């Protein structure tokens, strides 16, 4: 019983501490836009932006304060009438290519596009070699 009380006491002491380490989040960090169409645009964009402080999470998937600030930026800019691509460009200018999950062809990312294209050719070649020739063989045999 005493232990339970102590833990409760600890909880009460800990509460203001946990409140302190997060600044009050910006209004649109945790609130949606009223217009569903705009909100859908914002959500789609947020899912393709990287939370810079997390491991492999988009800003739409993160509790990090910075992700909250970025969500606020995205929503308020969408509300101000900017297009998602303008916002992405603004964020990329600010944080670098790293912030965007949607890859664009550039000097540092071209293999990401070239290799899959090559892969399609390899796959086609392997399939033709393994499966195409058989028919000829069967034809020869008959």
């Amino acid at each position, binding site marked *: 019983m005493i232990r*339970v009380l102590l*833990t*409760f006491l*600890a*909880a*009460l002491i*800990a*509460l203001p501490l*946990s*409140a302190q380490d*997060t600044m*009050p*989040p910006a209004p649109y960090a*945790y*609130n*949606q836009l009223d217009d569903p169409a705009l909100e859908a645009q914002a*959500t789609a964009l947020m*899912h*393709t932006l*990287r939370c810079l402080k997390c*491991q*492999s*999470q*988009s800003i*739409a*998937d*993160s*509790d990090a304060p910075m992700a909250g600030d970025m969500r606020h930026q995205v929503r308020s800019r969408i509300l101000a009438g900017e297009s998602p691509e303008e916002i992405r460009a603004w964020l990329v200018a600010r944080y*670098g*290519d*790293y*912030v*965007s*999950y*949607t*890859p664009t062809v550039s000097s*540092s*990312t071209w*293999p*990401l596009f070239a*290799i*899959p294209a090559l*892969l*399609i050719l*390899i*796959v086609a070649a*392997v*399939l033709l070699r*393994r*499966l*195409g020739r*058989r*028919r000829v*063989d*069967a034809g020869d045999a008959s």
Partner: protein
Amino acid sequence: MIAEIGLAALWLAAALAVLQMVSGAFALRSAEGEANPLAIYARPAAVMQALLAGLAFTMLVWAFAVTDLSVKLVAANSHSMKPMIYKLTGTWGNHEGSMLLWVGVLALSGGLIALFERRLPERTMSAALAVQGFVALGFYAFLLLSSNPFERLPVPAIEGSGLNPLLQDIGLAFHPPTLYAGYVGLSVAFSLAMGALLTREVNPTFARVMRPWVLGAWVLLTFGITAGSYWAYYELGWGGWWFWDPVENASLMPWLAATALLHSVAVLAARDALRTWTIMLGVLAFSMSMLGTFLVRSGVLTSVHAFAVDPERGAFILGLLALNIGGAFTIFALRAGAVAEGKRFSFSSREGALVFNNVMLSAILAIVLLGTLYPLLTEAFDVRVSVGPPYFNPASAMFAIPMFLVMAVGPLLRWKEDSPRRIRFEVLLLAAILIGVIGLVSFFGQFALLPLLGLGLAAALGVAAFLPLRGRKLTRVPVATWGMVMAHFGIAVSLFGMASEGAFTQERLAAVAPGGSDQVGEFTFTLQSVNPVAGPNWTAIEARIAVSRDGGTPVILTPQARNFWSPAQSTSESALLTRWDGQLYAVIGNQAADGRWQIRMWWKPFVTFIWYGGLLIALGGVLAIIGRVRVDMKRRKAVSLGDERRADLEALGTAPVPAE
């Protein structure tokens, strides 16, 4: 004393691995039928090694159970106040412990084949055991030289520093052991493949021996990935279930390779075709397991530069990786020419469909590999690139969609050669379902292309999964065929869940005052109260949220925001309301300045089908194992019965007449 026993057992096991390797190698040098005096030790060494590695692992679990704070690993990762279950699971919640588990499972599976596998020629078996010993030895060296789990502290710690709260979850109790067992099960497939390649015994018998191991590893990987996905879903608090995170990819890649391998092994066992292909996939699957271990264990993921600063462990695993994979591919290149390709088949045959899909699976694997490794590569040159869902989804779908289409009709085709016209009714039916569903769904709303295609494919695959049963007497369908039907249906179910979650999820983020209400989808929710609560090693605020669907009876959900104190970290414990047609996902966030609370709610229709599907796939694999093992047992019995009878007849025919 506990730690010292464990360490001694580990050293002895390593010594036995050497013996196993040497003895197996000598058996390989002697001719068939000739007994080499050194060759007899391979099997007993493997069994003893399994026992010793098991003992070492048990000792570590014990040290964690009693929180022996003089052991460095325990002090760094445990805490005397932790609940018992998390003390135990904490054993493998860290680098050293999880590597010991890895090696333990490796030794155990080596011991099992040594003890029970009698179908293969003895030389092939010895070669396989030698390879198994070689792989194990590398990992023993890694443990003993660079990550000793039993290291003592000069002065015992007063208190442990605790376990990452995200890991203090029942999910952790099962997730890593299943995944590791899956990874390591593939090591047996690898050893058997190398053994068969070295002795040129790549044939259906070998495939039948290898199949249960591949199936077993695949079942465990499927289960592990499914559990891991669900764990991330409810633990991370934002409703995402797959992030294309390198750690997730590390488990997906061996799964893809194992899926291709198990289909290839099936062809080899049934038709004696695809011999080199099977061997190559066997090597590839275990390579992906080792790569996964490297990615997760080397620290390369957190930062390439952190890895460069303290490269000891990473470099060790990388060295092992290069040695094993490089060695395997060298042997493959030298020997593959000696293994004939096996029986031939035409494009429109079941083998043809399986080859097509194996190529597609390999291509998806290549995409995942590229997307996982490319950012690490550029980071080494100080260029940071993000590769995420917008890349992985379309790039893998490019190969996955043709694969699903072929998967729908493949099982309907006959072996060796078939005319596509024979199954034109089925093909037309499936095409009609695919197009019909896509048309119907896009009629009712605007959806992204991939979820739309996913819904159509899921419907078509769901029907296609049962078509192989058409016109067959259900009571006489082999168990293994039921396994295939169930696994393929599981793919459809899972795909449906993913597509439905992608297309129909509804989200509501709102600041709600106690007593206030809001809406998400068909649900109305009311925040009744927010109270502090406390657990054994955390405190939390807990919201009581009454949720009612279409004005029905309200249900109380209690999401929490927890603060752990050792180590200090906060987590969101989401509250889930599961209905047959989806899940309501509720999270409590911070309190705003005006006293209102941030509530996050999602209604995710049919999201649970993702994991039901995963379970069905795993269950299908289990049925396949049961079916195959039963058939093998019957065959073995019949063969031994036949041999006995033949021996009896011979004895009768040529028995010397007694002299008296």
